[in-house]
């Protein structure tokens, strides 16, 4: 199944990301051993310059993974016709055990790379690069994630078996199979419960965010709340919001809303949600470092900006959700 252009493209991105990250990991090890900003030596200067390369490469990996995430979902959707019982992306991803783990790993890489870039930017505003060691210790944690994602993706694609006509007289694939896994788990949450949960966690996030903005405390809590909100929002999208978009009470797929048939509506929904979550996590990530001497002047403002951006994105997400429910022809509740 590997000879398909989107799959080749995905594998290419994984391979490049893995190579890049392996190098970054090796560099991180050297840096952790030898970093000494006070030294004016050539080796230190070269190491400092290499951190520029790592930042550039991380930006590249983040963008490439974002593209890869899109491609992966698009491709799963397109390949659904190749598998019996697969109606859309969910079916394709359930074709073997590695489909969904790969998706989750890609999501994780995107967020982690974004976090790293946020940390990197903050670090670069301090005249003594105070977070460099933290940053590169994190790189060591990210490397296995990227490699695992690549391996998982490769396994997934290698083990895809399309149900194509064979010459033998069997038609075993014609049996209808139910979509199992994510779809059925998350959509089993009652729509009303999901909506209430979404509203409640949205209110909580707004409240904690406001507290964090005004009294400058609770930022870590805000980051945690943002992460929880992300999960709740995804559950709600599967459980209630997509049925509203499809105007069909049993169509729960979180991927079909990205398709042209639904006017690419999913992007309006997912982009603010992802941005909001990334900013919230970023704020939480920076919070422990706000007292670092060389950052004390700039970091609190930067954190508050992230909180504000995160809140704004979540508000946009909330408005989109309300608009979806309002304009939908589907009536789920009395």
């Amino acid at each position, binding site marked *: 199944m590997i000879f398909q252009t989107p799959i080749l493209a995905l594998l290419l991105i994984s391979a490049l990301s893995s190579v890049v990250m392996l190098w970054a990991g090796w560099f991180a090890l050297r840096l952790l051993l030898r970093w000494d*900003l006070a030294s*004016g*030596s*050539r080796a230190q*200067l070269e190491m*400092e310059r290499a951190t520029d390369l790592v930042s550039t490469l991380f930006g590249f990996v983040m963008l490439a993974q974002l593209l890869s995430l899109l491609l992966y979902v698009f491709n799963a959707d397109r390949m659904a016709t190749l598998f019996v019982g697969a109606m859309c992306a969910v079916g394709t991803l359930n074709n073997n055990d590695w489909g969904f783990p790969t998706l989750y790993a890609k999501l994780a890489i995107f967020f982690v790379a974004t976090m790293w870039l946020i940390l990197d930017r903050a670090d*670069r505003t301090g*005249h*003594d690069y105070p977070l460099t060691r933290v940053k590169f210790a994190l790189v060591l944690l990210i490397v296995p994630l990227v490699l695992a994602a690549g391996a998982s993706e490769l396994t997934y694609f290698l083990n895809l078996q399309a149900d194509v006509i064979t010459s033998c007289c069997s038609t075993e694939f014609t049996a209808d199979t139910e979509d199992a896994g994510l779809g059925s788990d998350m959509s089993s949450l009652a729509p009303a419960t999901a909506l209430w949960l979404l509203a409640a966690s949205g209110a909580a996030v707004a409240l904690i965010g406001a507290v964090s903005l005004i009294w400058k405390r609770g930022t870590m809590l805000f980051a945690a709340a943002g992460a929880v909100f992300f999960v709740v929002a995804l559950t709600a999208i599967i459980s209630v919001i997509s049925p509203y978009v499809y105007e069909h009470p049993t169509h729960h797929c979180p991927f079909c809303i990205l398709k042209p048939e639904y006017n690419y509506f999913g992007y309006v929904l997912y982009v603010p949600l992802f941005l909001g979550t990334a900013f919230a996590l970023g704020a939480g990530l920076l919070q422990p470092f706000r007292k670092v001497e060389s950052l004390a002047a700039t970091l609190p403002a930067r954190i508050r900006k992230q909180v504000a951006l995160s809140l704004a994105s979540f508000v946009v997400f909330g408005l989109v959700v309300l608009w979806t429910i309002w304009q939908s022809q589907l009536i789920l509740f009395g």
Partner: protein
Amino acid sequence: MISLKNVSKLYNEGRPNEVCAAQDIDLELARNKVTVLTGPSGSGKTTLLSMIGCLTRPTTGRVFVDGAMVSGLPEKFQTELRRTKFGFVFQRFNLIRGVSVIENVMLPAAPLGPEYHELRERAQSRLERLGLGAKADMPIEFLSGGETQRAAIARALINDAPVLIADEPTANLDTVLTERFLEIVGELQSEGKTVVMTSHDPRIWQSSHVNTVVRMQDGRIIGVDA
């Protein structure tokens, strides 16, 4: 304004071709003065100048600009400092070929992201001041030696940096143009700018525009004439 404490610079450290270009240098450069570093070639004056201008980090020792230590800063911050505090005129002028005169002058300001027309007007006024207003849109290769140097000075002035650093500015100029250069230096000084340059040209260090002459040999300072 700029002070160097116990500064040394090694090139190719740890390799067989290791060179000690500057050794144990202590130097204080006063604000609004014209200082000339002089000495035979290989005496370390260019290395010293690039450490003063934050182009190179010393291997040991400290450099202070306006009281803040800059020698331990990462390159990025040294660059930020360099583009706001220093304007550079190089020996071979180092203008970029294939780009017009005015665009060359605008280059140091580009990373600061000023408004385009505002920057262009600023560059034009610098050029006019140095008598190059009419040649702004010419390719840089079309200028004569003296004009090229004045374009280089205009480029050094674009960011209104308080310190002008010049490396052998008159090495390629005849007597008339050298005089003209010294006049410009005098004007800049009267505007409150600090000027540091290297030169082994007697016309420079004997000029009345120069306040301090620092004599160097073998990477060490052997005398300061105020």
